[in-house]
């Protein structure tokens, strides 16, 4: 073999703590290496051209690049060597940046380590074989999980591009948090006026099938050909018959049911349509309040329903669908703020969450747009907002900023003044974070035009005094303790990943961070992709973001899905398992362990043998480690290749 080795400086990223030129010099002594050099930025155009030139000048048939992580630039360099006529699998990378120069300060030790990593890359490459991908058809259908504004945008974009969409929403209606908002910053336009039409589009689009009250049961398969089982939870209402007339809710005797949509502001009936603009507009029974279930008798709704849609016996239904790509848009939930006993821990009726306050302000909310206190129905005059409740707080394991609370607090202060002109708002804040277009101007308007008093400092205690509350905090700018008398306190509660996100991530086989937010493939360059091909992210499922960013990400995820499925055939990764039929004894152990059922038993001249189904194998190598005969080998990661790496390390 004729191997060329390229050691990158990555500017000073590697060059500062690794002697790249020295490593290149040493690499010349390695077996089969006929050319070695160092290069400033190997991934740049001149850098790649240098590789291509060296391949032709030195008749190289294998290349090692020692640079950043292969998770970053392996595809880049594989394309480069391919342009020069070398098979893209005749290429190896040594990670001397993330694993060497960035984590060690001792240049001698680093350079030595870098050289050894090059040595194992060379030993592996010497045993590489050219591999060529196969092509397979894909299912041109996208699954969108979560029907918040991000998921809605992704679904509509895919559908408009002619791709079928299946949307799965856990709640009875799509719309997510945005459907609960009164008005939205920075334009203060009505939330349901801008979201409502999009929700209707989802319902009416011929390419979109919506399953509300549904969740993902399981996922199998792989990019282009996922098989998804959806659990449609029993709502006790036959959606094909329900017309959404609402007669059932009118007559339901259980009127004190928890109102999920209104965040517990007010109550609802056990059978209800969550809000007038709900999509789908179908009634749903909440079994924990329905007398038929709690007491064993009632049956009122079944009697009054004009279409006979009620069925108390309805069971969950499992539905299997095939899709080619998936978008995870499951959004966020609010942190459990009741851990803060200094804010009353939920004991004070007039200490509410920001989301409850949206419902209290909303014209379509339980108060018809007239803000009043939950305790006595009086209009509040002094309203205190507390920011960062459950955000940027290491003590409860929520060190991150929730991103949009500063903005919506300013919005809520402005709206409070609009609703109650003789009111006064106070905002306790840590910092004001408003780095969007028109955002800083907006928070300034809240102060300058609407007279909101911003107090920089934390609140240490809220306690009742008569029918009001004393909010005690510190004004760090004035260096003094302050007490504000409040009729109403609104907590800007921080954001966490939607309940059960880790569980969903495990089903989708994508990574999540320690807070449950889904992890993108690369923080900067692949913010939409995940590490599982064909699964994309949108909205707050990846981390807190406001509506404009969620919508942008929804469109981006759609673009990725459309791009993927626009190809008639998808390329398969050739790094898959292969059975050496002569060594296989037909024990079937590999068949049992393969998580993808990618191995089947075949009859070969009267003997049982294993055979890998190429389009199905995902290249995990589980079979390889299991086979007692070493008969099944994972291409590009064969026993010989890995043992050669081990040996190269032990020898030096």
């Amino acid at each position, binding site marked *: 073999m004729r191997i060329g080795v390229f050691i990158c400086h990555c500017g000073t990223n590697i060059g500062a703590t690794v002697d790249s030129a020295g490593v290149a010099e040493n690499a010349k002594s390695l077996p089969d290496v006929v050319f070695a050099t160092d290069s400033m930025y190997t991934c740049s155009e001149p850098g790649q051209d240098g590789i291509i030139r060296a391949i032709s000048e030195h008749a190289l048939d294998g290349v090692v690049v020692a640079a950043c992580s292969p*998770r970053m630039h392996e595809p880049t360099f594989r394309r480069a060597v391919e342009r020069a006529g070398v098979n893209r699998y005749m290429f190896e990378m040594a990670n001397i940046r993330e694993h060497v120069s960035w984590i060690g300060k001792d240049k001698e030790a680093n350079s030595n*380590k870098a050289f050894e990593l090059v040595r194992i890359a060379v030993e592996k490459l010497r045993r590489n074989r050219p591999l060529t991908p196969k092509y397979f058809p894909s299912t041109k259908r996208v699954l969108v999980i979560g029907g918040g504004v991000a998921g809605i945008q992704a679904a509509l974009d895919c559908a408009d591009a002619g791709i079928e969409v299946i949307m799965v929403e856990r709640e009875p209606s799509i719309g997510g948090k945005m459907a609960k908002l009164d008005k939205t910053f920075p334009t203060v336009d009505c939330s349901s006026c801008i979201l409502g039409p999009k929700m209707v589009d989802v319902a009416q689009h011929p390419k979109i099938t919506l399953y509300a009250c549904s969740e993902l049961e399981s996922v199998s398969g792989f990019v282009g050909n996922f098989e998804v089982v959806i659990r449609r939870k029993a709502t006790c209402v036959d959606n094909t018959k329900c017309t959404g007339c609402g007669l059932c809710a009118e007559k339901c005797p259980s009127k004190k049911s928890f109102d999920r949509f209104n965040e517990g502001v007010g109550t609802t009936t056990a059978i209800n349509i969550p809000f007038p603009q709900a999509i789908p507009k179908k009634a749903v029974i909440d079994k924990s309040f329905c007398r038929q279930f709690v007491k064993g008798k009632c049956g009122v709704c079944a009697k009054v329903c004009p279409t006979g849609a009620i069925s108390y016996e309805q069971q969950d239904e499992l539905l299997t669908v095939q899709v080619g790509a998936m978008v995870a848009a499951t959004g966020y939930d609010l942190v459990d703020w009741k851990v803060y006993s200094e804010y009353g821990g939920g004991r004070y009726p007039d200490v509410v969450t920001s989301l409850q306050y949206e419902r209290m302000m909303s014209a379509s909310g339980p108060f018809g747009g007239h803000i009043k206190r939950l305790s006595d129905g009086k209009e509040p005059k002094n309203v205190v907002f507390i920011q960062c409740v459950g955000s940027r707080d290491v003590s409860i394991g929520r060190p991150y900023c929730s991103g949009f609370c500063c903005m919506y607090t300013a919005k809520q202060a402005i709206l409070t003044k609009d609703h109650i002109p003789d009111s006064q708002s106070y905002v306790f804040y840590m910092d004001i974070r408003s780095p969007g277009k028109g955002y800083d101007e907006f928070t300034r308007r809240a102060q300058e035009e609407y007279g909101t008093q911003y107090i920089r400092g934390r609140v240490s205690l809220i306690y009742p005094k008569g029918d009001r509350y004393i909010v005690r905090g510190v004004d760090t700018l004035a260096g003094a303790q302050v007490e504000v008398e409040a009729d109403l306190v609104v907590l800007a509660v921080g954001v966490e990943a939607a309940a059960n996100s880790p569980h969903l991530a495990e089903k989708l086989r994508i*990574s999540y961070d320690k807070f449950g937010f889904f992890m993108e493939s690369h923080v900067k360059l692949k913010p939409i992709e995940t*590490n599982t091909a064909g699964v994309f992210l949108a909205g707050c499922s990846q981390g807190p973001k406001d509506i404009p960013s969620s919508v942008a990400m929804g469109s981006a995820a759609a673009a990725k899905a459309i791009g993927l499925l626009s190809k008639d055939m998808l390329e398969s990764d050739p790094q898959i398992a292969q059975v050496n039929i002569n060594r296989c004894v037909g024990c079937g152990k590999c068949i049992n362990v393969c998580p993808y059922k990618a191995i089947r038993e075949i009859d070969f001249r009267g003997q049982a043998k294993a055979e890998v189904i190429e389009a199905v194998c995902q290249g995990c*190598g*589980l079979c390889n480690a299991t086979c007692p005969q070493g008969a099944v080998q994972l291409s590009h990661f064969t026993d010989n290749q890995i*043992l050669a790496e081990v*040996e190269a390390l*032990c020898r030096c």
Partner: protein
Amino acid sequence: MSVLTGKERRIVGFLCNWCSYGGADTAGVGRFVQPTDLRIIRVPCSGRINPLFIVKALLGGADGVLVSGCHPRDCHYAEGNFYARRRLEMCKNLLPLVGIDPKRFEYTWVSASEGQRWQHVVTEFTKQIHALPPAPVFPESPEIERLAACAGE
């Protein structure tokens, strides 16, 4: 012989591509300084790791072997790390039989976001290996290797 005799020990790491290799990358991006002894071999899944690799490394002169994969239930290939866990545990139990101190081998789970955890794992394991005497020299033994291969089944 390595230039760093006396300073470093020979530690071989087998890391799954999707979680732990990513975690090691995250540690790098975060500039979380670590001892320089470890050399990482990338494999697709912890389930790809044959105990033979570990035993071969330890018999061949490695002072320590560190294996890391995705957290159980979080495997990129659905269930590869369940098999890995069983095999690696077997491998650990087997080491004393072939005369290797089981402290020379550890396996752990680190996700792609856990850069700091990776720094901690590497630092602690390196300390653990430095506390042991240098690796003994083993005679070539096909028997031992056959035994190791059995752990894979």
